[in-house]
Structure formats: structure tokens, C-alpha cells
């Protein structure tokens, strides 16, 4: 391993981190950077192609949809919802899942049996159907989407962290801490937790990507947020209808979604190496 990648400055981290930063900044400063109003319709400008094709209009870089709305601006504003869902849902799922996983893995016995059974039952539900069902029950809206994703995906954290905590708990340093008179909870937090943090970080980033996809799926089936605010999934759903007249309305949101999800998972892997003192 060369020095750069040991420090975590691998191309992977740069590319993934660069894209995420770009997308995040664009989403945060959407009103400033978006070239057009994402909701403004203009039937004179319907289905404009992206800038390098004939018939493109300046200021509409990625073209327009069937109602003449600027695609780039809609993508940028859609990013706001995507990132909000990604961060909130992933962090919520992480907190619940990691805590329960740590308890199950470290304490074992009854705690483990109960938590593991719940996880098994939970994972028996098909996740997307579960999400659709939950949103149907909770009602549409940003907070229901976040809540639904957290409720479904905490098991992902729980399983991995449980296994890791279990392995760490068998290590001699845990025994040593017991001999020194540390309490169980103290050992769990001081000795075991730091050793599972790299995995938590990697999972967190991965989960953000998954949350983006789930949100897109929910938008696609029109179950995400109910307003007219653009979302990536919503854009894909619209683009699908006009694929033969204006392919770009489908393709650009798809590329954005794929790049973002891919970046989240790559970024997580790179961070994991960086956080782990042994791999570093």
C-alpha cells in the first residue's frame, strides 16, 4: 500500500467525496446556484434538449421536461430532499441499530436472544413493501419517509455491530478490563465501542446511499412528500413517461442517483480504512 492510500487519500476517497461535496453544496445553496426556478412552467420551452444538442436554449443546461421546467434546477432542488432524508434517516437507523447491536453482542445471553429474534422477524419483511406500507400508515411527508427508512433499516446496523461487538468481547483486553474492576457498561463504551466505530462509519455512509434509493423509490410510486417539490425519484417517474420524446429527463436523474449512491458506499469504505488504526 502506498503512502497516499494509507492516509486514506486514495482516488476513491477523492472522487466519491468530491461528488458528494459538490452535490451537497449545490443542494444547500440551491436557491443561489440553480439557474432557473424549478417549479416555473413554460410551455414555449417544453422538452428542450441538453446544451450540446441542436435546439438547446442557454440557461437550460440539461434541457427541460414536458412542462418546460428546467431539469438541472429540479435536480439540484431534489438533492435537498435526498440529502435531508439520507442524513436524518441514516443517523436515526444508526443510533438505534448500533446501540442494540452493541448491547446484544457485548452482553450476550438473554439480551442477545431477544434482540436477535426481533431482528430476524424484522428482516423477514420485504423492505420496500414494508416502507410503502409504513408510509401509507404514517401518511406522506418528509418526516414519515425518514421515520420509515429508520424503522426498516436499523437491523442492518444491529446485525453487523452485534457480530463485531461479540468478537471484540472475547478479546483478552476486555477480560483485562474486567479484572481491573471496570463495570460492564463502562467496558462496553470504553473498550468495545471504539473498536466497532470504523464499521459504524462505513455502514452509516452506506446507509445514506440506501436511504437515497429508498426515498427515490417512494417518490417514484408517489408516496414520498406530497407537494410539488421535485425529488429524484419523482423526476425518474416523470422521465419514464417521456422517454421516447425526451430521454434526458430520465437519464440525468438516474445518473445523479447512481453517482450519489455509489459515492456514499465508496466513501464509507475509504473512511473505514482511515478510522481503523490497524489498517491505517
Amino acid at each position: 500500500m502506498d503512502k497516499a492510500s494509507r492516509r486514506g487519500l486514495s482516488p476513491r476517497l477523492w472522487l466519491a467525496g468530491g461528488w458528494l461535496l459538490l452535490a451537497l453544496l449545490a443542494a444547500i445553496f440551491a436557491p443561489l446556484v440553480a439557474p432557473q426556478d424549478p417549479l416555473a412552467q413554460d410551455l414555449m420551452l417544453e422538452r428542450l434538449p441538453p446544451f450540446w444538442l441542436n435546439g438547446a436554449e442557454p440557461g437550460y443546461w440539461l434541457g427541460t421536461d414536458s412542462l418546460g421546467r428546467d431539469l438541472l434546477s429540479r435536480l439540484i432542488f431534489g438533492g435537498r430532499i435526498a440529502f435531508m432524508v439520507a442524513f436524518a434517516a441514516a443517523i436515526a437507523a444508526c443510533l438505534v441499530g448500533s446501540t442494540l447491536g452493541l448491547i446484544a453482542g457485548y452482553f450476550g445471553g438473554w439480551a442477545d436472544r431477544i434482540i436477535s429474534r426481533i431482528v430476524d422477524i424484522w428482516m423477514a419483511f420485504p423492505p420496500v413493501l414494508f416502507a410503502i406500507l409504513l408510509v401509507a400508515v404514517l401518511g406522506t411527508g418528509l418526516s414519515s419517509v425518514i421515520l420509515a427508512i429508520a424503522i426498516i433499516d436499523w437491523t442492518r446496523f444491529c446485525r453487523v455491530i452485534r457480530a463485531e461487538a461479540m468478537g471484540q468481547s472475547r478479546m483478552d483486553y476486555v477480560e483485562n478490563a474486567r479484572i481491573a474492576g471496570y463495570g460492564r457498561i463502562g467496558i462496553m463504551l470504553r473498550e468495545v465501542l471504539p473498536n466497532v466505530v470504523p464499521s459504524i462509519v462505513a455502514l452509516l455512509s452506506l446507509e445514506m446511499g440506501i436511504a437515497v434509493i429508498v426515498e427515490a423509490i417512494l417518490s417514484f410510486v408517489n408516496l414520498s412528500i406530497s407537494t410539488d417539490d421535485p425529488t429524484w425519484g419523482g423526476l425518474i417517474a416523470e422521465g419514464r413517461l417521456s422517454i421516447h420524446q425526451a430521454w434526458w429527463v430520465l437519464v440525468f436523474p438516474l445518473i445523479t442517483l447512481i453517482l450519489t449512491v455509489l459515492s456514499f458506499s465508496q466513501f464509507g469504505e475509504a473512511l473505514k480504512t482511515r478510522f481503523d488504526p490497524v489498517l491505517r
Partner: protein
Amino acid sequence: MNACLEINNLSAVLPNGQRVLRSVSLSVQPGEVRALVGESGAGKTMIGKAVLGVLPSSVRIVEGDMKLEGEDLGKLQPKARRTLIGARTALIPQDPLTALNPSRRIGPQMTDRLVRILGWGGEKADTRIRQLLDEVQIRDPDRVLKSYPHELSGGMRQRVLIAAAFAAEPRLIVADEPTTALDVTVQKQILRLIAALQREHGTAILFVTHDLGVVAKISQKVSVLYAGKVVEEADTVALFAAPQHPYTRALMAATPRYTDPFASLKPVDEAVLAGLAAEIAAADQAWRRPHG
């Protein structure tokens, strides 16, 4: 004067009822090194773990008592027992890699424990740790204290662990095969270090090993273990001069000699093993599992 550690008639069983410790009795006087010797699976480590209160949850003590400086460990509340064990004992473990937390630097790992056990301030603990690192001949304490465990060699890690074990001035140290995981060249140095620190600090050591050579070098008393039963107990000098039990004699005969490197290795004799099996069976027959 109380013995540093006194184990009386200690029996422990697995969930299937099989005894892993068979009425073990032994004592360690203050400042004395007692070796616990036996093959792997003889229950040496189990005794160490029982003393330190970290037996696996599947193993249950069904009889006997352990006294640490006169205090009956079985009669204490769990919390008081933990505190007592924490303050009076320490462990030098077998594998110096897994005994250190891989994600924490050496410095805080060592000082934390002193702060915890002795209630010292961080600075005082730091001074003490540096003093101990000097005693185990670590010449660049600054680098070592800032390192993560994987950045040190096995020998260095074991030195760190020895320093950590002696730092809080425990009365009893359980050394669980502390040289087994190390290079042969490093083993000798580590053994010398433990012996030197032991003399200087006057700490009693329960030294678990399978290596009779190590026993001869470091201990004053020996207990020979087979299948969780103490088959012979003696002063080290007396034991090597005149081993009483056939098993002890067989073990000694099985030790390879440097003087005759091409001689084939001698396993313990069949007849001796048969005798041992009969002895264990007789002991189990006579033993009635206590109620409760």
C-alpha cells in the same frame, strides 16, 4: 500471617456435569512464585481465571473457597469482589496482542487503569507508568506511550503488559503462560524481567506454564496438574531433585534436552496415563456433588 492466595478444595463443573477442576487446593505465600504446570487442558488457566473472577459463564464453581489475603472471595458481594480483585491482583496474559485494545493508544490504556484502581490523578499515574516502563527496559517511553498496540513488536507489547501489571502494586499477579506467544529469543528476556520485577516489588505470582524449564527458573513452589487435579505439590528444588508422582517423572522425561538434540521426543508413558485415569476415576467416585 495470611497467605496471599489460598484455594481450598475448589471444584468447578461444565454444564454437562463434568468436573474441570477437581478439588484443587493450593496456596501462594506473599512474595512467593508458585508455578502451575500441566499439559494444555489440565485446568491451569482455569484456576487463574477463577482467582481473577473471569471464568467463562459456562463454568460453575460448585465447591470450595478462595481467599485473597484472608478475604473469602465467595462471601463478598459481586461489586466488592470486583473492587478487591481489581486492587489486589493483575494479569500478565498469554497473548500480548489481544490483551491490548487495538484502537486505543498505549498511554491512556495504562494510565486509565491506575486512575481507576488507585484513584490517582492523571499526572501521577503518568509518572508511575514511565517509571515502570523504565523498569521493563523500555528506553523510549514517549514513542511507546503514543503508539497503538499493533505498532509495537510482540516483545515490546509484553513488556508494556508487564509494566501495566506491576504498576498498581498488586499483591498477586497471575501470569498465564506469559512467554508462550513470544519468540524463543525474547522469551528469556521476558522471563528475566518478570523475575527481576517480582523480586524488587515482592509480588506473589501464580505462574501458569507448561514448560518445566521455566518452572525451574522462576518458581519456589510447584503444583503439577492433570485433568484439573493437583497430582503433586512440592518445593521446586525438591520436585526436580526427587519427583514423587509417576506423571511428574514422565513430564520431566518428556522435556527435550539440548545436550541430545537428536533423541526422539518421548511422550508420557501409557502405563502412567492409565494410572492417572484410574486416580481421576477414583477421585470422581469418592466425590459427591454438593447440593445447591
